[in-house]
């Protein structure tokens, strides 16, 4: 299991990185943490002629709050999602999901930008971008643009990133006091890819749900919002009946693919169980707060 030969470039700036990619005529990959890419290279599932290491580009680093948005540089590591005080306060869903991402050593190395750019439908952070209504900052030869998470994830491992473009940062609207969130997943072993996972952000200025973001992982070709389940909650008090309606609505949201070990009906069942448990948890939190 040794990677095919490649040449290695370590640019210092975004411009150098983009130029290095252009020069390779498409036969190149960016590498940041490399925690997903390197296994693919070792297995020779991917074999770019050039590896462009963006891990030392200062512009891709940094965690800061500006104008109601938390900006996370693409190179922010998973462990920072776990530990960083600004993330804990302003993007609590990331902090809640972080302990479920792989294992400690992977989290020390893996980057949020890499995870979102790869868009593995079974990964936690991409789905959380949907749940937090994040925007993804993309930089390319044409300049910089911001794409809402809902438009970023397009199909299996397909995103709004065009070849050669770099994911520069994640922008997350800072959490508001009237928002509550929860994350959990069902996995056979700690750190495994989940059978199903879910992150929820409910905006409840008073005792009714004004806005609901429900995002699932491992239920389809991309991380997925659950609009029907969200709609079932809008305007409702978070009670057993509303939760039941949201669970029932999931059949309209999710159409899990056939998978040898996990039949579609099982994934839908588990998604309902998980949604029910998470909403129940929020219901309990609200009751405690009251």
């Amino acid at each position, binding site marked *: 299991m040794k990677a095919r*030969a490649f040449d290695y470039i370590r640019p210092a700036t975004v411009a150098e990185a983009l130029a290095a990619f252009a020069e390779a005529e498409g036969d190149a990959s960016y590498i940041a943490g490399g925690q997903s890419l390197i296994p693919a290279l070792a297995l020779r599932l991917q074999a770019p002629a050039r590896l462009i290491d963006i891990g030392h580009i200062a512009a891709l680093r940094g965690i800061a709050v500006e104008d109601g948005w938390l900006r996370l540089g693409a190179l922010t590591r998973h462990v920072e999602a776990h530990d960083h005080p600004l993330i804990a306060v302003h993007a609590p869903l990331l902090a809640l999901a972080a302990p479920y991402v792989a294992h*400690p050593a992977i989290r020390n*190395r893996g980057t949020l930008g890499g995870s979102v750019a790869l868009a593995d439908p079974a990964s936690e952070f991409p789905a959380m971008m949907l749940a937090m209504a994040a925007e993804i900052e993309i930089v390319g030869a044409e300049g910089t643009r911001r794409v809402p998470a809902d438009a970023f994830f397009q199909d299996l491992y397909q995103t709004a990133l065009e070849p050669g473009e770099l994911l520069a940062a994640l922008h997350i609207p800072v959490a508001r006091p009237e928002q509550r969130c929860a994350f959990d997943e069902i996995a056979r072993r700690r750190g495994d890819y989940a059978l199903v996972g879910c992150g929820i952000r409910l905006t409840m200025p008073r005792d009714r749900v004004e806005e609901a973001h429900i995002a699932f992982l491992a239920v389809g070709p991309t991380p997925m919002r659950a609009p029907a389940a969200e709609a079932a909650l809008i305007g409702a008090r978070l009670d057993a009946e509303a939760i039941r309606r949201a669970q029932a609505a999931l059949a309209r949201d999710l159409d899990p693919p056939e998978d040898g070990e996990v039949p579609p009906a099982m994934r839908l069942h588990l998604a309902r169980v998980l949604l029910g448990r998470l909403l129940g948890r929020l219901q309990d939190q609200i009751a405690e707060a009251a």
Partner: protein
Amino acid sequence: MSAPLPVTLTVNGETLSHLIEPRETLADFLRRDLGLTGTHTGCEMGVCGACLVMLDGVPVHACLIFAVQAAGADIATVEGLTESAAVADLQRAFHERNALQCGFCTPGMLITAQGLLARTSVPSRAEIRDALSGNYCRCTGYEAIVDAIETVAHKRAAGEAAPRFTEEPA
């Protein structure tokens, strides 16, 4: 274009310059080029945890980094941590508790334990088991490893230091 590149990095306190083929992983570089075979490769895809090393003070998979990426980094392997006595208490506790059998996973276990105790001084047994979620052991059944780490956590919290491990008689 895949010619070896000059790389300078620090391994176990010594700054080294080597010509390294870009596709060589840090694990292979440590094992093959430096003879630091205490870092083991059990899967070469970041799953088994046998290749963990300290990179700039935190545990990472040496099979999930190309050595060229580690240019400028400070690497510590089980050999270096043994020499510096940084994990002497863990080694002693593993030995006394028989928290290893074949020993292939052990260097990775020590590194995970060291990383865990740096973040959480007295973890619960559940937290220890959680921290070991990326370290395969096929021999022990894990309980002895959890016991050994728990013992060291309490000893470190109580301020007990351990002498160098290998200087102890068997």
